[in-house]
C-alpha cells in the first residue's frame, strides 16, 4: 500500500487520500478486479467456443462472486483464523502489484527505484497464500495440492527471475519500471530482439504456471484432487480466492507487456496487446493436457532454464 503511493506522499495535495484512491479504486483493487473478472469471462467463453459450446454470459464471474458472498462459510474442524485470513494476504498483495504496474503506465513519475523487485516479491504471495490456506484446512487432498504448489513455485521462479534479469541487463541495469518502459520507447520493444523474444517465451510459460492454468494447473487439478488447495474453502474466502485469480489474470499479462513489449503504451494499443497475450495464454491452456508435478519440475529446470540462461547470455552480448 505504501509502495504504490511512495512518490505521491511527496506531493502536497491530499497525499493519503490519493494513495487510498489509487490502491482501492484505480488502478488498484476495484478496477483490476473488474478487468480480471472480465478477462476470466473471456477465458471461459473462448474455451467454450473452442469446444463448440456457447459459453457463459459476460457477467457470469461477477454473479459467481456475488453468490459466493451470500453463502455460508464452513470452517473445517481444527482450522483456525489462518485458514480464513490466508486468501486476503494474496488479494492485498495482488492489489499492490496492480497499483504499482498501473501507476508506472499512467504516470512514470510515480515509479520508484526498485519497484520491479518489490513486484517480483509480491507476485509470490498469492501462491504462498494458497499454500498456507490449504495447509491450514487440514484436508489430505488440500495438503497434496499445497505440496504440489510449493514445488511448482520452486520450479518456475528460477527461469522467471532469470528472464527478468535478461530484461534488466538489456536496460543497462535499471530496476525501475519507468526506465524500463522509457528504454523501450526509445530503443524499441525488447520482444523485437533475439534475447528479448527468448526471455518473453520463458516468462510467458512461467506466467502460465503462476496463473495455475493447464498444463500447470497441477495444484488445483479439478479431476484428480477435486480442486486441491481450494477444496475446503466456501463462501467469502472462496470468493476472495476467485478474485485473487482474477487479479492475477489482469496483472501478469500487464507485467509481461511492461517489461517486454512497451514500445507503444497508448491505451487502445495497450488493450490490444493485453488481449493478444490473454488469447495466447488461453490457447496454451486449451491445447495442453495437465503435466505431472515431476514433469513440470523437469520442464522448468531443464529446457526453460536453459532458454532463460541463453537469453541472459545474449542480453550480455547485446543482442
Amino acid at each position: 500500500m505504501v509502495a504504490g503511493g511512495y512518490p505521491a506522499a511527496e506531493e502536497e495535495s491530499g497525499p493519503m487520500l490519493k494513495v487510498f484512491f489509487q490502491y482501492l479504486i484505480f488502478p488498484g483493487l476495484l478496477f483490476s478486479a473488474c478487468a480480471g473478472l472480465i478477462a476470466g469471462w473471456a477465458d471461459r467463453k473462448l474455451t467454450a467456443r473452442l469446444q463448440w459450446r456457447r459459453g457463459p454470459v459476460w457477467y457470469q464471474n461477477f454473479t459467481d462472486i456475488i453468490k459466493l458472498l451470500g453463502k455460508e462459510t464452513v470452517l473445517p474442524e481444527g482450522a483456525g483464523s489462518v485458514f480464513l485470513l490466508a486468501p486476503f494476504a494474496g488479494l492485498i498483495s495482488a492489489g499492490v502489484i496492480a497499483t504499482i504496474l498501473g501507476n508506472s503506465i499512467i504516470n512514470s513519475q510515480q515509479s520508484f527505484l526498485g519497484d520491479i523487485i518489490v513486484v517480483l516479491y509480491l507476485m509470490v504471495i498469492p501462491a504462498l497464500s494458497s499454500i498456507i490456506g490449504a495447509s491450514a484446512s487440514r484436508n489430505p487432498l488440500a495438503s497434496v495440492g499445497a505440496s504440489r504448489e510449493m514445488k511448482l513455485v520452486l520450479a518456475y521462479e528460477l527461469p522467471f527471475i532469470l528472464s527478468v534479469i535478461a530484461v534488466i541487463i538489456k536496460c543497462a541495469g535499471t530496476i525501475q519500471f519507468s526506465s524500463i518502459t522509457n528504454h523501450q520507447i526509445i530503443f524499441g520493444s525488447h520482444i523485437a530482439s533475439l534475447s528479448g523474444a527468448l526471455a518473453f517465451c520463458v516468462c510467458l510459460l512461467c506466467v502460465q504456471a503462476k496463473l495455475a492454468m493447464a498444463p500447470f494447473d497441477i495444484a488445483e487439478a479439478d479431476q484428480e484432487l477435486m480442486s486441491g488447495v481450494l477444496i475446503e474453502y466456501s463462501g467469502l474466502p472462496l470468493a476472495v480466492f476467485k478474485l485473487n485469480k482474477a487479479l492475477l489474470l489482469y496483472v501478469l499479462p500487464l507485467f509481461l507487456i511492461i517489461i517486454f513489449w512497451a514500445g507503444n503504451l497508448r491505451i487502445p494499443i495497450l488493450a490490444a496487446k493485453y488481449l493478444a497475450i490473454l488469447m495466447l495464454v488461453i490457447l496454451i491452456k486449451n491445447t495442453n493436457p495437465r503435466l505431472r508435478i515431476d514433469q513440470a519440475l523437469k520442464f522448468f529446470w531443464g529446457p526453460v532454464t536453459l532458454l532463460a540462461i541463453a537469453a541472459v547470455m545474449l542480453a550480455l552480448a547485446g543482442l
Partner: protein
Amino acid sequence: MKSIWVFHVSAGSCNNCDIEILDCLTPRFDVERFGIQLVGSVRHADALLITGAMNRKAAVRMKKIYEQAPKPCLVVACGICALSQHMFRDSYNVRETLDKILPVDVYIPGCPPKPEAIISGIVKLVNKIRSQDGNAAKR
C-alpha cells in the same frame, strides 16, 4: 441466481443417469451458458445432484455430504431410482427413499432422464428460487 454450482453424488446408481448428466455439459446442451458448473468439492456446491436408489451404506454418507455442504444448498433427485427406488423398491438393501432423508427441491423422473429433462428440471429449480426470493422481498 444464475450461477448454480452442482456437486454430483451417486448413491448407488447404475451409471446411466451419470452419463446423461455429463451429456448436459457437452456442446449440444452446454449448461455452462446458464452459469451451471460441475464442481469437485462439496464445499463449493450450491446444489447436490443425486442419482441412484440410496442403498443402506449410501444413506449414511448422503447425510454426511449434505451436512458438509455450505447452506443454502439445494437437492435435486435425478432419475426414477432416486425418486421412488424403481425396481429396487422391495430390495433388502434399500430402506428409505431420498426425500425421507434430505429435503428434495426438484424431482427429475426418467430412466435415465434425457438431458432436456435435466435442463428443464434445473430451470424449474431456478424459477422456484426466484419466486422464493420474490416472496422474501415482499415480506
